[in-house]
């Protein structure tokens, strides 16, 4: 990003983050591929993602399955090592942290997962589960802290849950335990990957309220990962719409939902059903399906499904995520339909690529 959306040093700054996975097919294939001189193939799950996260801010990562939102989340929590780009936490690059520095970072970041039935070790009591992070970081007053966290998560009286096993709890209670575990270290930010999508409808709201309280009362930053825009609209200050490993639109939630600009965002927002029979929405039919993350298309990744496709520019020049002159508000959009406010000229890039070595332009959104 060329400039910050808001003033002040962001707590977390992600720049051009990339994560690719090698398509691994065993030692024998690796040898035969090597012999034939083939390059190993990669899945480009996250391919140049940039955003800022302020203290106390909530950001929603939205998109269809396979768009790289979960991989982004897992890279943020250092479950995956990034393949490129940087993650800066409080001004410090954490991509290559090791040893004690890494442990210090780990104290401040936690993750909440989707499946309440899989997120707790079935062989350990609730107390064991909650006390583990404290033991790892050698933090005192363990029992009181655990009790405090459980209480905050609405599991009262906490002592009653200490010796219970996950199978004795309901789905909603388990997800609350998972939240308590995330909170027990008192982190600065949390990545929540579809935190309620597997809960029963009537229990969802309770867990969402808990997450809201966590953010509001303790000034925690949260990255929500979800395909459910209704939910993200409810929970998030900012929204990043992802498509095939990239952010295509980024800005304030209500602005994006009220007036989506990127053709993909439009389709996504309009596809959300509304629980009110009197409201009729305009549906945008989107052709085709999400493309291949192994052989990423040149130019705009959305070009094949786009109604407003402009021709060669879209085919050849990858649109950077940038401010647009014809879009007001704090909004970044990655689409050639709008005029750049940052001086990026796709036509010129197209000419350059033709006169040059003929390879397609890989424009990056950062300076």
């Amino acid at each position, binding site marked *: 990003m060329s400039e910050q959306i808001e003033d002040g040093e962001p707590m977390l700054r992600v720049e051009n983050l990339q994560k690719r996975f090698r398509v691994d097919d065993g030692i024998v294939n690796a040898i035969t591929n090597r012999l034939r001189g083939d390059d190993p193939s990669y899945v480009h799950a996250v391919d140049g993602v940039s955003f800022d996260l302020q203290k106390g801010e909530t950001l929603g990562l939205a998109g269809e399955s396979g768009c790289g939102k979960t991989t982004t989340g897992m890279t943020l929590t250092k479950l995956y090592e990034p393949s490129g780009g940087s993650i800066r936490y409080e001004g410090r690059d954490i991509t290559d942290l090791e040893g004690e520095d890494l442990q210090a970072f780990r104290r401040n970041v936690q993750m909440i997962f989707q499946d309440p039935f899989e997120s707790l070790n079935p062989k350990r009591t609730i107390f064991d589960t909650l006390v583990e992070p404290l033991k790892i970081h050698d933090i005192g007053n363990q029992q009181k802290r655990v009790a405090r966290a459980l209480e905050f998560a609405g599991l009262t009286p906490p002592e009653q849950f200490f010796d219970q096993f996950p199978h004795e709890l309901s789905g909603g209670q388990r997800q609350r335990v998972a939240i308590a575990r995330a909170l027990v270290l008192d982190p600065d930010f949390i990545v929540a990957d579809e935190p309620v999508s597997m809960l029963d409808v009537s229990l969802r*709201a309770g867990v969402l309220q808990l997450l809201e309280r966590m953010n509001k009362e303790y000034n925690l930053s949260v990255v929500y990962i979800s395909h459910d825009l209704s939910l993200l609209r409810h929970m998030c200050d900012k929204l990043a719409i992802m498509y095939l490993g990239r952010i295509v639109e980024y800005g304030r939630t209500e602005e994006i939902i009220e007036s989506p600009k990127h053709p993909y965002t439009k389709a996504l927002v309009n596809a959300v059903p*509304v629980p009110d029979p009197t409201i009729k929405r305009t549906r945008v039919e989107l052709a085709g399906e999400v493309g291949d993350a192994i052989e990423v298309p040149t130019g705009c990744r959305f070009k094949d499904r786009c109604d407003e496709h402009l021709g060669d520019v879209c085919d050849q020049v990858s649109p950077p995520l940038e401010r647009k002159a014809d879009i007001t508000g704090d909004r970044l959009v990655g689409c050639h339909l709008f005029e750049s406010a940052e001086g990026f000229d796709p036509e010129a890039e197209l000419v350059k690529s033709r006169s040059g070595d003929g390879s397609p332009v890989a424009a990056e959104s950062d300076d």
Partner: protein
Amino acid sequence: MSLLEVDDLRVHYETGEGPVKAVDGVSFSIDPGENVGIVGESGCGKTTLADAILGILEENGSVAGGEIRFDGQDITDMSASERRRLMWNEISMIPQSAMNALDPVYTVRDQIVEAIFAHETMSNNEADERVRDLFELVGLDPERADDYPHQFSGGMRQRAMIAMALALEPSLILADEPTTALDVIMQDQILKRISALQDEINSSMMIITHDVSVVAETCDRVVVMYAGKVAEEGPADTIFDRPYHPYTLGLQGAFPNIRKPDQDLVSIPGHPPELIEPPTGCRFVDRCPLATEDCRTSEPPEVRTDDLRTFCHHTDKIDGGFRSRAGDRDAWKETVAAMEIQR
């Protein structure tokens, strides 16, 4: 006459701890050409209901009472072969996850043709022609009919399932969570496709879902189920506009609405009851902010208000204070907390 009448249906599952009364006295009907949504949380018996109609209950489940009348004939009473004749020809299904609903070792064409040949006599060419038409109808490339299911994406498989469901132009289609496994965009397209096709062949549909918004957009009438029983039933517009059952109100409030970002989300306190020994009286009693002693001791009566059927003791009270407060999450919490203390 109604196309499908379910009359006081009871379905039990035998378990080590006694029978689970998954469906316990459910009645409703579907008229020709009508779309009926069955809404409820997991475990409320909505899938069991569909399985009972289709005759594909788990081996420990059985119809313990009541009737399912299709075109006036009780299908629970039919012989296996009579029933088989009816299946797919008259009643077909779109299952929850097309991921596993197609046999992985046969091509999609083979599986559709198999359904056709089970009920109609025609030449291979005619059957192929039918498959081609069906594929075009659901927006799939007919050239890909000879692919195996795993070669299709999730959305394509669900389309193939719809093609198969329509193969014999049934008069009733049972769709069990037809889109939950899909992404938003695909979900939208599939729902749109289903509605359009169904209008074309004028079949009725029963859509089972936990997603209130899906029902709001596709159904004429809604049955709200709770813990194996009908809580409320009526036209979709009325159900969404002025429901009388507190559970319906709670369910609506639990869903975030993309158009109403500032609305509080309602969380209904507590959990649905165990269905091995369900509470006497109203099953919603432990979670209901309006519950009284009556609710605990006697079954809620069927009350008809406007065009709704509501099973509740307090339909008269709901208009007074609670409806206006139902969207407020604290209203639920406080009232139920107060009940806890009383007990």
